[in-house]
């Protein structure tokens, strides 16, 4: 069972309280962008086997969106932070790097 701490209300929420929302930090493309950019934004996904950043909503709690750094190969959780963050914050990057020294960093 996945347990994520909601960075907004501080509750350690288990999975049934949460709604998954897919890959985080997608760069949005809209009118005026190329077909390729739009396709990538809509459909191409990193889908890594390893460190992954993804959106979650504390659906049956405070209702707010946040982002979790998680390992898809082991289900280990590295940390969570509010969704109003453009890129993974330093303390999360550090937390991942201590657990995964070989990690190439956020790309």
């Amino acid at each position, binding site marked *: 069972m996945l347990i994520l701490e909601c960075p907004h209300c501080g509750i350690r929420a288990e999975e049934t309280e949460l*709604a*998954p929302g897919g890959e985080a930090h997608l760069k949005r493309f809209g009118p005026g962008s190329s077909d390729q950019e739009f396709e990538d934004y809509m*459909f191409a*996904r990193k889908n*890594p086997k390893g460190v992954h950043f993804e959106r979650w909503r504390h659906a049956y709690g405070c209702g707010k969106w946040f982002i979790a750094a998680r390992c*898809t190969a*082991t289900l280990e959780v590295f940390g969570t932070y509010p969704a109003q963050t453009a890129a993974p914050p330093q303390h999360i990057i550090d937390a991942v790097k201590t657990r995964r020294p070989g990690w190439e960093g956020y790309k």
Partner: protein
Amino acid sequence: MRRYSVFAIAREAMRHHTGWERAWASPEPRASYDVVIVGAGGHGLATAYYLGKNFGITNVAVIEKGWLGGGNTGRNTTIIRSNYLQDPSAAIYDKALSLYENLSQDLNYNVMFSPRGLLMLAQTHHEVRGYLRTVHANNLQGVKTEWIGPEKVKELVPIINIHGPRYPILGALYQERGGTARHDAVAWGYARACSAMGMHIIQQCEVTGVRSEGGQVTGVDTTKGHIGCKKLGIVVAGHSGQVAAMAGFRLPVESMALQALVSEPIKPCMDVVVMANTVHGYMSQSDKGEMVIGGGTDGFNNYTQRGSFHHIEETLRALIETFPMISRLKMLRQWGGIVDMTGDRSPLISKTPLGNCFINCGWGTGGFKAIPGSGWAMAELVAKGEPGPLAAEFSIDRFKEGRFIDESVAAGVAH
């Protein structure tokens, strides 16, 4: 390859079964092949088989990191049907179903295909309309399905409760030709037939890199060394994103866990397959008597072949309402597979940015039923370098062009 037959059984019975040969060889890899297929699941093995059978290409290796059929092919609930809404889907799934009908004879291997009939329950008015539409679409596609009322459902499935408090049974989409087959046997049967044609099935050998030069693949790096190839087929389901990354491109695919479970064996009580998509559950009875049960995928990216327990609870909660008698059953085993979900929930059988590299993936929660048709279409793509009519609509380009094959509206759940 010595053929299996009633005479073979008699002969072996007379000599204490000492004459059975191994079903397939375990060769060391050669330096290079005409075609290398990555992934010895049903789709990879079927691709190799039809490359040999339909195109005479037998200098082929199928490379598998674990054991053949050990991925989703050996983990699924074996439902076979072709009652899809969209024309390209109906075409390829129905091709697969008609190949399944003769597969045991074709492969000389009993895949235990059991066309016992399949019901998709309608439990909301929305579903009634949806399935009526599918019946009409299927009739236009030449796929025989029919709409049946609740009484007929009860007649076909005596253990069902048609007056459920939340979701009464309002009718069902019925495909008489649908059913199940033995999942391992499908992989084993194809593997044996491939091996008999001289193809190499190389197990315990993981592909770790894809080498290319000037936009063409030259070979793959594996845990058993470099293996050269003139053409490469990537058929690795949940690991498609990973192997595609080795080849330098991205896919509209996400990998998630899908679980299934079986009960203790009980006497025969249900001789059709029943799917209940509103409540996300489906059930059939295996030849051993176990009730085989599945539901929907977990919602997040996952490579662990382990799903979340509450999804199983949800599935069972829903099924108990529809089949009250299963509430006392003990569940024996539960497991997960990593399914490859595309943006429109339809598969990819496609060219890639590398000229001689082809991909077959995205079958997600429902690709067991497609194995023969998918292998047939993929073999044509690999052999000719261009897709035939079955594969053409399933190219990656559809995501750029907005030409989706949106089956999620028709069956967005596990199937």
